[in-house]
């Protein structure tokens, strides 16, 4: 099978497996061979197991041979971020404190994918406990951007986004707390959807900041993004925030065009410091969509500029509480000490990396007696103002269009010693997280230096279909489906 096959859409691969044109085993072998050539170079995976992947694929072939009715994802390879629990398969969250941890259960989304007949390629690298925007905070190694190996793939779902961009898997799951699906999708030139808060059950997603965490799909086309979303969305009684309103998006709805849709651009948020090539891309896409019948208008999100300050109180506060469970008693790493109190402190001090320790301290400080009102409570009130901004803007507009990131992918090491500069890179993705509304990053061209540009669409709760439809309209005339980074090993061969 030719290597071009790895660039086919998940939709096409699934169709060919269901029609028995190809076996799931053949599909899996093709992708495994591809990964053998690219994964070490990109460092996309924390855990891969060829035999397990092939066993999953032959189980799918057996189900098809038995005449079982499978979904469009039958035999389709899917990469999983390493903070999604997979039964008896290592799940580390990119942390030393969970090195060697084998969860005794599957996450809800993992169960759904198994039933659907998807085949897992492995567990992808990420910033430790999903805290970061570059995947440099992985305790194991940094992942590289497939478009430029000296640059970061974004984060925290950097391994998932880079893997899909490089043709190692047509689909991947990531998690998004303040932009961790959308920002790496933008940096790697792929689609990344953060669903509405409550659209996807987090059962089995290792918790970071529970009022913000969502699991989201990463893919190379809008239709593939919908296919994966359709498998994971909906009510699950094991996550009390999950909602039945989250319904599958019919693929034909994506082809309806944008005629009559109102798209708002928040010019007050997109201020200084945004890369001119990204601004030019925003204008180009707005004009193209207007030509297709969309109405472009200005909307205002006056409090969105306070998002980073709000987020860096709320998310660390929740993280400091969620990460209290890593105490060295029941699983994971334990430091050898003489007494219990020392064991907790040394285990956590050595087991957590720099960024995680920083956020635990920040969150504990923001919640501590005497500071709670000034920091955490105030941040929760500002969050209300940010939510209202979106409610208002989304009565005037059906969706909001803005950049995903202020800059193209930055160099590895460039921001690693300046946490605040790293945080500020998330200024366009964090607002939708705080408001709990759905947001989609889609590829919108390349810079002159051949780096991907991502733009973002934000919509009303449970209106993922609208976002995918707008992105699909742009994609259908502008995307070069075969566009994939040329990796060094391929140049050499």
């Amino acid at each position: 099978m030719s290597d071009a096959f790895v660039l086919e859409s998940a939709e096409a691969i699934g169709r060919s497996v269901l029609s028995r044109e190809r076996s799931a085993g053949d599909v899996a072998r093709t992708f495994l061979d591809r990964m053998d050539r690219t994964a070490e170079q990109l460092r996309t995976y924390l855990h891969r197991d060829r035999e397990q992947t092939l066993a999953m694929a032959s189980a799918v072939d057996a189900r098809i041979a038995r005449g079982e009715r499978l979904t469009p994802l039958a035999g389709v390879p899917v990469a999983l971020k390493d903070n999604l629990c997979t039964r008896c398969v290592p799940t580390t969250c990119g942390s030393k404190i969970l090195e060697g941890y084998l969860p005794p259960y599957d996450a809800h989304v993992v169960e759904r994918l198994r039933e659907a007949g998807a085949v897992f390629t492995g567990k992808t690298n990420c910033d430790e406990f999903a805290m970061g925007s570059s995947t440099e905070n992985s305790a194991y190694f940094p992942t590289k951007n497939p478009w430029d190996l000296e640059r970061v793939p974004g984060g925290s779902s950097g391994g998932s986004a880079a893997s899909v961009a490089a043709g190692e898997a047509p689909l991947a799951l990531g998690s998004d707390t303040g932009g961790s699906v959308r920002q790496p999708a933008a940096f790697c030139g792929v689609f990344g959807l953060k669903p509405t808060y409550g659209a996807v059950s987090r059962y089995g997603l290792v918790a970071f900041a529970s009022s913000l965490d969502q699991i989201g799909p990463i893919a190379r086309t809008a239709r593939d993004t919908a296919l994966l979303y359709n498998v994971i969305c909906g009510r699950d009684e094991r996550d009390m925030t999950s909602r039945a309103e989250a319904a599958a998006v019919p693929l034909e709805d994506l082809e309806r065009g944008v005629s009559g849709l109102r798209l708002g651009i928040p010019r007050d948020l997109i201020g200084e410091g945004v890369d001119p090539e990204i601004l030019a891309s925003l204008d180009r896409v707005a004009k193209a969509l207007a030509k297709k019948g969309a109405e472009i208008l200005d909307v205002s999100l006056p409090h969105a500029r306070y998002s980073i300050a709000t987020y860096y109180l709320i998310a660390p506060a929740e993280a400091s509480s969620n990460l209290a469970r890593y105490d060295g008693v029941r699983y994971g790493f334990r430091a050898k000490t003489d007494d219990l109190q020392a064991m907790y402190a040394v285990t956590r001090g050595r087991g957590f990396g720099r960024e995680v320790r920083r956020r635990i301290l920040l969150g504990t400080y923001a919640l501590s007696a005497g500071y709670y009102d000034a920091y955490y409570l105030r941040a929760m009130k500002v969050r209300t103002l940010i939510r209202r901004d979106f409610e208002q803007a989304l009565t005037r507009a059906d969706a909001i269009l803005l950049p995903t990131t202020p800059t193209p992918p930055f160099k590895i090491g460039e921001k690693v010693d300046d946490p605040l500069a790293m945080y500020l890179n998330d200024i366009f993705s964090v607002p939708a997280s705080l408001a709990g509304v759905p947001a989609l990053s889609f590829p919108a061209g390349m810079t002159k230096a051949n780096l991907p540009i991502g733009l973002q669409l934000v919509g009303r709760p449970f209106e993922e279909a609208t976002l995918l439809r707008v992105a699909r309209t742009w994609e259908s005339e502008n995307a070069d489906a075969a566009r994939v980074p040329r990796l060094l090993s391929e140049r050499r061969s």
Partner: protein
Amino acid sequence: MPIDAKVVHDVAALSRLQVDPSEEARLVKELASILSYVEQLQALDVSGIEPTSQVGSGSKPPLREDRVKPSDVRDEALAQAPDRDGDYFRVPRVV
């Protein structure tokens, strides 16, 4: 209150997190820089604004039925223990 080595030390104790003395100066600097950035929230008037602790879009979730379900993971869960004694997790001396 300005962040200094003592504050970092106290918060680390509350967090059950050992901070290496060689790290303290860097942490003081980084936390001070982040806290100085979040100061901008003090300029906003939030009087009468309800805090958002959770965004709940859509319907109230139905309560699940209260019934016992099997969960046969005891041995697998115990197998993850860094130290165990039979069916117990073993920890260092408590007092």
